[in-house]
């Protein structure tokens, strides 16, 4: 097995005396799409935040891309290689126009204006979003904003995608587009989500978070029949 991209060893996070993460250990292998499931407030988002150093840890080791990471300066490189897609698109999209927002990451990676813009347009085109390039962010629909967020993180050509509730508040058509786009990528991912059908499609492995601790879960695929109500339109 190749070396893990990111590994946690007994990581703890305390907030106001409460244990948000308790002795969390796991690793993410190249190409793996790891699902993290769990109830609201179980610590899933904290786990993602700790992976890129936004959440300081109180104990344990974080090894990312072959080096131990502890300080803010260590995490700068991690953030460029493990791209974090935020739950609320309006937190992530801060530039007035779409193409500028997508170019923001590449510019921070040291590309020139023209290179960053070209990279942004290529990324938008690869997601069938070329028509949005010159639009104003505030005029986009919720689904469009989410897709542009994905373009923004993909433009950095990261090794890992960290997705926090990526399908939240998306309609069925946009969920399908997003999942399609993610399936076509050959990248490791950590996906925090409540959307079971989406996880069933995407994930290659799953972990359950309960009260700040990680537990393995069996992920298996089989044909089954069941009875449930659904809406016909």
């Amino acid at each position, binding site marked *: 097995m190749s070396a893990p991209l990111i590994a946690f060893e007994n990581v703890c996070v305390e907030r106001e005396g409460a244990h948000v993460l308790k002795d969390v250990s796991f690793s993410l292998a190249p190409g793996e799409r790891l699902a993290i499931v769990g109830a609201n407030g179980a610590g899933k988002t904290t786990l993602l935040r700790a992976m890129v150093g*936004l959440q300081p840890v109180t104990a344990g080791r974080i090894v990312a891309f072959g080096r131990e990471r502890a300080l803010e300066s260590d995490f700068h490189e991690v953030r460029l290689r493990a791209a974090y897609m935020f739950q609320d698109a309006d937190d992530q999209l801060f530039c*007035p126009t779409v193409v*500028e927002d997508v170019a*923001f*990451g590449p510019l921070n990676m040291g590309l020139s204006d023209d290179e960053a813009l070209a990279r942004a347009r290529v990324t938008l085109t690869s997601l069938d979003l070329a028509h949005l390039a010159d639009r104003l962010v505030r005029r986009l629909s919720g689904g469009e904003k989410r897709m542009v967020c994905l373009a*923004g993180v993909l433009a950095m050509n990261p090794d890992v995608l960290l997705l926090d509730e990526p399908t939240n508040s998306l309609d069925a058509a946009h969920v399908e587009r997003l999942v399609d786009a993610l399936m076509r990528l050959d990248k490791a991912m950590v996906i925090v989500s409540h959307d079971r059908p989406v996880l069933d499609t995407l994930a290659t492995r799953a972990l359950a978070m309960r009260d700040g601790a990680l537990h393995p879960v069996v992920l298996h695929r089989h044909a089954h029949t069941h009875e449930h109500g659904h809406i016909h339109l």
Partner: protein
Amino acid sequence: MSLSQAGAHREAGVPLIEALDPRTRLIAAVFLAVAIVSLNGFAAKAGALAFAVALIFMARIDPQLLMRRLAHIEGFMAVLLVLLPLTVEGRALASLGPLSISDRGLERAIHIVLTVNAAAMTALALLGALEPIRLGRAMAALGVSERFVRLVMFIARYQGIFSSEIRRQFDSMRARGFRSSLRRQAFRAYGNLAGMILVRSIERAERVDEAMRCRGFSGRFPLRRVRPMTGADARFALLATIAAIALHALDRLA
């Protein structure tokens, strides 16, 4: 290609003002505004207003937008315009009971209306159609502090989100039977609303900062190339200078 669509505007049939570099427009707007507010006489101020109207035509500002913007300004000045003729001492032109309209007060009010409208229309003609992003770039290129420029750009992006947050919160208050009134209870609710919006704004700002750091932001925006000025910019600078000199000459002679 530049991020803004400045290039696309340089085609034939585009308003004259739109062909100018945003830096030229910004400098010209400040320069002309200073020139206009330092005029003294009535004739020069009327001339300035005529010049401002000409600029509005050159910029082909949508008349509806013009009216809306001017209505905002007139709203601010309404109080002043009503109070000045009544409060400034002078010869009474007309009187209504204990109130009398003084000639000097009326004159002063007219002067203020002329100056403010001339300056506002000049600014609107030059900057009205400028996207915040291009305005921000121009400010940065002119050496305005990066923090201030960033503030301008963030306002452009997040103003809509804050107003919709306030609207949503207010709707949810009304959905639970809240009605605006001057009662103590209503004021307490307004206080909670204002506090909540403030807290959410701070939280939002923190998340935006984190999202920016996640894309490698380290405190400085990468510098951007500036497009060179053209002959149109030089011609417009000359026009603005001549107009300012002419207005001030008129002011001295009159």
